[in-house]
């Protein structure tokens, strides 16, 4: 990260709309102490969490159905691929047009964009599950819950984490696009767009820094920690 600072200085010297790092850092304490900053971040975060959760649940259901029935696998497969190939900006515009900029629109656009990643990831995980262990669990009469917990989940987990990483990164990108296109009054995208429109470049930089910080904290602080905990047996074994 520190290696980027000289490049940042270099870019600031070349382009008028890029502020130098020291100017941005000087404004950071005031920016972070403003309660409005946190309420906007909180609102966007809530939209991401709600949309991503919905996307994960929808993805899980779709993957489970696809792996259990060949017919449903074919049918749902088309929808999943169509959703996967839909550009996020188009999805954002459509969802916001349908839901007229309501909260549901923001949540649904995140869910729509993230669910195919979860569905494909989990379906691949379920398809790769060890049939021998599956048979063992049936012979020993493990109930469905025990089977999911002890046999399927550990197999699917690497696929879920990989899909979750992609879906999570995409969720943040798409929510910003949706907030900008949806002319949201509050939220990260709305504030970023406002700052950009009025060319308050320090604020644009600050919002970008906050955005990167949140994505990195979620990735390294949350997802990777959870991943390490889930796969601790690999290290110990």
């Amino acid at each position: 990260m520190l290696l980027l600072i000289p490049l940042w200085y270099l870019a600031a010297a070349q382009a008028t709309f890029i502020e130098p790092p020291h100017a941005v850092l000087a404004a950071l304490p005031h920016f972070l102490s403003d309660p409005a900053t946190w309420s906007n971040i909180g609102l966007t975060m809530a939209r991401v969490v709600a949309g991503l959760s919905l996307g994960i649940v929808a993805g899980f259901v779709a993957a489970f159905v696809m792996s259990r029935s060949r017919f449903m696998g074919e049918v749902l497969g088309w929808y999943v691929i169509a959703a996967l190939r839909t550009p996020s900006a188009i999805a954002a515009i459509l969802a916001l047009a349908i839901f007229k900029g309501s909260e549901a629109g923001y949540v649904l656009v995140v869910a729509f964009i993230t669910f195919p990643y979860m569905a494909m990831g989990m379906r691949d995980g379920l398809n790769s599950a060890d049939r021998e262990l599956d048979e063992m669990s049936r012979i020993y009469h493990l109930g469905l819950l025990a089977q999911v917990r002890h046999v399927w989940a550990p197999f699917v987990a690497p696929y879920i984490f990989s899909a979750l990483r992609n879906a999570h990164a995409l969720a943040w990108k798409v929510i910003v696009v949706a907030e900008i296109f949806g002319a949201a009054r509050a939220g990260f995208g709305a504030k970023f767009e406002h700052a950009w429109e009025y060319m308050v470049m320090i604020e644009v930089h600050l919002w970008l820094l906050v955005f990167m910080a949140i994505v990195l904290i979620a990735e390294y602080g949350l997802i990777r920690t959870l991943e390490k905990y889930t796969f601790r047996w690999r290290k110990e074994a």
Partner: protein
Amino acid sequence: MTDSVLRVEDLGVSYGASEAVRKLDFDIKRGEFVAILGPSGCGKSSMLNVISGLNAPSRGRVWVEGAKLFTAASKAPRLGYVFQSHRLLPWRTVRQNLEIALAASSVPKAEWEAKIDEILGILHIRQFKDAWPMRLSGGQRQRVSIARALVVDPSYILMDEPLSTLDEVTARSLRQELTGIVQRTGVTVIFVTHSIREAVFLADRILILSRGPARLHEDFTVPLSRPRNYDDPRISEIEGQIIAGVQAPWGLGGQRDVA
């Protein structure tokens, strides 16, 4: 009837027009060690799937401890299964692998610790209780697999070529130990193997199946007392008799049939 742990009557398994098992009848008594011998592809797996409660037969009846299987009211049999590969959950320790089987068999949690200690002790692997399966050798993993089968107090244990993937030295030692374990616990064992010598060494009876569709070619009682020695010349002698007897029914081009 009460002495019978598993009774199979007129068993048939078909997949469409293809017949895997035909009119199979046998009875296994409590505490017996029965080996099942048959050529590759003769329908042993189809038969095992039925007697393990996984698949219903196309025809015939199966009783476990007097209770008929595959009826609307019947419960799946409580059995132990030792597979060709260990099939342990790599993300669970030895203890946890056994606990999962105990929980599935509705054994009260208060009894788990004592049962696990006892079984691991019998198999000489108590020191690996908290080890991960990947840390164990092939032989140790298979011991854990046997422990998992024993710990649930099964009606019978199905062993499907459990020693075939081990090196001969380990297999030999485990074979020897297996006879001791069976004697100590009194468990009923159904042991599927391709090795005639192994069957003669381990079993009280050998059910010899014909080439597919599997039928009972011969119910052979091993005329040897215990303890047995794997290198005993009488084992080689009986092995020779059985080999000669299965030439024709297994389609090996021999001349005579032991039946």
